[in-house]
Each structure stands twice: as structure tokens, then as C-alpha cells.
């Protein structure tokens, strides 16, 4: 019988969206570039080189720290973290130690429909190291290669308190954190490309047993985080049940094998001999700057999610999906301006729009369809001018060609029957076939009219001009009175 408590803390690194690196003017656009082409004396750590802090790094980090409700320290101080590794040209990393940019914040998120809160221990800034590649086509056998393009890229590190109680929670927390940094324009939060990285500390404890903290690294997607931590929970639980010890160590997640593996080497922490970096003078973080950034903070994912729930009466699940991607959420709200049916718009976005985006392999920002266009289409559906099925295929074409709904409809020959005479005949047919609805309408039920319009649309396979249909119906019906 296992009644163990899982405790998880996360350490998340986000690459900050600056144009230039943290301490030099090299470009940060390193993905796909030839190795060692975005370098200079500073990020190569050449003798005599010196760092100068990129102002934008502070702005972005402050944005993140404030969005996470942190206390901002009045002075920014950098420390050197000293260790030897080939991807670290200076033999030390410029980081922050006991005076990080922000402390004592919190993050709220939903996990399984329940709102959770985890405290943020600290947010600090530091430079990224280079990339190491191991043996392969490019390198002589028995060697590794160093690419310094990534050296000096600015990172914000966010550390949570160990307050997450399941792998699921950890994943959901990470997703919210990612959404926040994306919303803020602070990072593009891409785990696959490495602009968002996550390490976790996990321990299992019971009423009689203190937990042993195990560090888990190399989780490269949200799913990996969930899987790796789930595996760890199991592994540790089994050990505990068998009365075996759990070592305080670092373990790597092996995505392919689906297991964590002990990383070779040390027990106990390496001594990084932190001391204040003498090349970088402490700088003040003024109240005005903090206030300015605070006032410019956009609506954050959680607030937006909750607003969608209250304002648009969407479920938490629906709201969450919309809010994941700021641009989708924006698209959603922009569509509502022209067509105010939140549930319907939400539904269409999360099913058809998403489907089209996936098939085309694009983001909403790259799509040729605008919120107005979508609204236009949905209005037609709503008015039963066209059927839902037809609308779906129209949408597909709109995505492919960028054409507006009516264009597509015309082009396809789903022409509206706008000939009055023809329509009138159909209308009379429908009236004949639906005496009850006629009676309902005549006794004042407006909804019956909609129904009759719908019937006309059905008869015409969605091709009747809805406005005209309505006016003809009314005319005919009123003459029936």
C-alpha cells in the first residue's frame, strides 16, 4: 500500500526575445546558421574581451518577473558561476546568484479543471552556453565539436518552489508558464527548438520518510515532462516499497527508451565559487521603470481564460484551448466583434480552423483568413443560408485561396437563388408543407420564421438568398393572414 506524496519543483530556462545577445551585439538568430558565424571576441571569451549588458534583456526579464508577481530587487548584480566545459568559452557563466532580478512570486494555472497556485522562488537572468555536437559526419572520430553561436544568448531562469504534486500538474504549470512568456513577447517558448527548457526536481515522501530529491533533465517537450516525471514517480515508489534507497542524483530522460537514466558522476553539488562579476557594475532598477513595465503588461493567459469563462460563458476546457495561443485568442475575440456567438465561434475555431491550420502546417498569423472573413461565413451558417457541411468545405477553400465566403460560394456555383419569382415558388411550396410553422409564426412565434427560412434553404440546398427569402416569406405569410 503506497501512500506517498509526490513533490515536484521546476527550473525553467527561457531564451529571451532580443535581437542581440546578452553582452555583445551578435545576432540571436542562430537557428540553422553555420557554426561559429554569429560570434565576436566577447561571446568567444577572447583574452581582453568584456561584457556590456543589453538593456532589452532587463526589460524582458522584468516583464516576466512582474507577470509572475515577483518582488523586484532594487539593484541588478551579476555573479560568475565558475566551471570548466567546452561550451563555456570563458570558463564561467555570467549569471545571478543571491540577488536575482525577482523573488517571491506566484503562478496560477488550471490542472484538470482545478485552479492551482505555485509559488515562484526566483527569476534571474544569465547567458546561455554554446552547443556541443558529438561525433558524426562533421567531426573526426573520437571528438566533439563546439559551436559558440548560442554563447551569450540571454536566458531568464524561473524556479518554482517544490509545490507541484503530480506530473500532470507539473506539465500544466509548465504550459501556463510558457503561455505567459509567449503572451508577454518575452520568449517564443519553443521546447523543440530549445527556447524553453525544463529541468525538474522530484521526490517522494511518506509520513515516515523524508523525500530524496532527484533531478531530472533532458525533457524536451511537455509530453516528455509528463512521461519522465510519471516514470520517476513509479521508479521511486517501487524502490520505496521494496525498502531500497533512493540516491540524490541527476537523471536523464531517455525519450526513446522511456526511462530515466542516472547521469554519471558526482553526488553532492559542484562548487561553482560564485562571486560578483567585477566586469559588470551593479545597476539600479528604478521604481519608474517597474511601474512603466507593469502598466504595459498585457492581459495574461489566466486572466484571459477566466474572462472567457465569465464573459463568454465558455467552459474552462474551451477557454483554455483558445487561450493557449495568444494569436488564436485574439482571432477569437476579433471574430466576435462581427459575429457575437462565442460558443459557435469557439467551436468552429477549435475544430475546423485548427484542422485547416494543421493540414497547411501554418500558424494563424500565416493564414489568409481574417476574423472578419470567418465571421462572415459563420453568419451565413447561423442564418441557415448555407449548411454547416457546405460551410466547412467553403472554409477549406477560403484557407487555400484567401477568397471570401461569398466569392467561394459564387465560384462554386453554390449560387444564391435570387430570382424572386423562382424563390417565391419555393417559398409557397415550403409554406404548404409546413402548416404548423405557419400557424406558429402567425400567432407570433418569430422562431417559426427561422424554421421556415431553414426549410427554404434545405430545399435549395443552401443556395437561396437568405435576405430575399426572408422578405418573400414575410410578404407571403402576411398576405396569408
Amino acid at each position: 500500500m503506497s501512500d506517498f506524496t509526490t513533490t515536484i519543483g521546476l527550473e525553467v530556462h527561457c531564451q529571451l526575445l532580443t535581437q542581440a545577445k546578452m553582452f555583445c551585439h551578435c545576432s540571436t538568430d542562430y537557428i540553422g546558421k553555420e557554426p561559429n558565424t554569429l560570434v565576436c571576441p566577447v561571446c568567444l571569451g577572447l583574452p581582453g574581451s568584456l561584457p556590456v549588458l543589453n538593456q532589452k534583456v532587463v526589460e524582458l526579464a522584468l516583464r516576466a518577473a512582474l507577470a509572475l508577481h515577483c518582488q523586484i530587487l532594487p539593484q541588478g548584480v551579476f555573479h560568475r558561476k565558475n566551471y570548466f566545459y567546452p561550451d563555456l568559452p570563458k570558463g564561467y557563466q555570467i549569471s545571478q546568484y543571491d540577488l536575482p532580478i525577482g523573488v517571491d512570486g506566484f503562478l496560477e494555472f488550471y490542472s484538470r479543471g482545478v485552479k492551482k497556485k505555485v509559488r515562484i522562488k526566483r527569476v534571474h537572468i544569465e547567458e546561455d552556453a554554446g552547443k556541443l555536437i558529438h561525433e558524426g559526419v562533421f567531426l573526426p572520430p573520437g571528438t566533439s565539436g563546439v559551436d559558440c553561436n548560442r554563447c551569450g544568448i540571454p536566458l531568464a531562469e524561473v524556479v518554482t518552489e517544490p509545490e507541484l504534486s503530480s506530473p500532470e500538474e507539473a506539465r500544466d504549470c509548465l504550459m501556463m508558464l510558457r503561455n505567459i512568456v509567449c503572451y508577454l513577447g518575452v520568449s517564443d517558448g519553443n521546447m523543440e527548438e530549445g527556447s524553453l527548457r525544463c529541468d525538474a526536481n522530484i521526490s517522494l515522501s511518506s509520513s515516515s520518510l523524508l523525500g530524496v530529491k532527484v533531478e531530472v533533465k533532458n525533457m524536451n517537450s511537455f509530453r516528455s515532462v509528463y512521461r519522465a516525471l510519471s516514470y520517476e514517480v513509479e521508479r521511486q515508489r517501487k524502490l520505496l516499497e521494496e525498502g531500497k534507497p533512493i540516491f540524490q542524483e541527476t537523471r536523464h530522460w531517455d525519450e526513446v527508451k522511456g526511462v530515466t537514466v542516472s547521469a554519471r558522476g558526482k553526488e553532492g553539488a559542484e562548487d561553482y565559487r560564485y562571486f560578483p562579476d567585477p566586469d559588470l557594475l551593479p545597476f539600479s532598477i528604478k521604481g519608474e521603470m517597474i511601474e512603466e513595465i507593469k502598466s504595459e503588461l498585457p492581459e495574461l493567459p489566466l486572466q484571459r481564460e477566466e474572462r472567457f469563462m465569465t464573459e463568454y460563458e465558455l467552459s474552462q476546457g474551451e477557454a483554455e484551448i483558445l487561450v493557449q495561443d495568444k494569436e488564436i485568442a485574439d482571432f477569437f475575440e476579433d471574430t466576435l466583434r462581427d459575429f457575437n456567438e462565442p460558443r459557435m465561434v469557439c467551436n468552429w475555431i477549435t475544430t475546423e480552423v485548427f484542422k485547416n491550420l494543421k493540414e497547411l502546417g501554418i500558424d494563424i498569423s500565416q493564414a489568409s483568413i481574417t476574423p472578419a472573413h470567418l465571421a462572415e461565413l459563420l453568419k451565413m451558417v447561423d442564418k441557415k443560408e448555407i449548411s454547416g457541411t457546405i460551410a466547412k468545405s467553403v472554409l477549406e477553400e477560403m484557407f487555400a485561396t484567401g477568397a471570401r465566403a461569398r466569392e467561394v460560394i459564387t465560384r462554386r456555383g453554390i449560387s444564391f437563388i435570387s430570382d424572386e419569382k423562382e424563390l417565391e415558388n419555393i417559398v409557397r411550396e415550403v409554406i404548404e408543407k409546413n402548416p404548423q410553422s405557419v400557424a406558429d409564426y402567425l400567432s407570433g412565434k418569430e422562431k417559426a420564421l427561422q424554421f421556415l427560412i431553414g426549410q427554404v434553404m434545405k430545399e435549395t440546398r443552401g443556395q437561396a438568398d437568405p435576405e430575399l427569402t426572408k422578405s418573400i416569406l414575410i410578404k407571403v405569410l402576411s398576405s396569408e393572414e
Partner: protein
Amino acid sequence: MREVISLQELKRIAQVSKLELSEEELQGFFEDINNVVSRFEKLNDLDLQDISPTSHLSWSEPPFSSDEPRAGEGGEEVLKGAPQVANGYFVVPRVVDKEEKENEDRRV
């Protein structure tokens, strides 16, 4: 000379600094360094409790850099002059473990 740092400790620190010292060198350093370090103890005469440390000589707010990317100078030359290069990478002996930061125990 007072022994403040033991021979063992000295070996460990040399290790951490990636320096290999022969027994003879170690012995020489042992005396020399302890001589220097034992003199630091006179700093204990001072009452430093309420003194704030000078970590920087800071006459004013430091300059910030603008977020403008520029082509860096010297990359090509550095690659040309590097100890070993292949296909644009700086080549080192195979790094055994991706996260390896500590050296294998080969001396102490």
C-alpha cells in the same frame, strides 16, 4: 609558517583548477602558499562586522548596450588560429557525458 591549508586540500584545489602538480611542486607550493595565507589572519584584528564589502568600484550607473545586432569581428580569424577545427566547429576530445562537468578521478 602555519599550516592553514593541508597538503590534501591543496591537491584538491589544484585539481579543481585543472592544474597538475608534481609532488615536489606541491611541497613547494604548500610552504609558499601557507606562508601567504597565514598572514591573512592578521585581518582578524579588524572588526569587519558592519563594514559593507567593496565588490565594485562604481562611480556611476553603468552604460547599457542597445539591442542592435551587428556582425561580430574576428570569428573567421579565430577559427583559422584555433587549435583544432572541423567544418566550422571547434574540435575537442570526445565529451563523454553530455552533462559532464566534473573530471574523472584520476589524481587525488
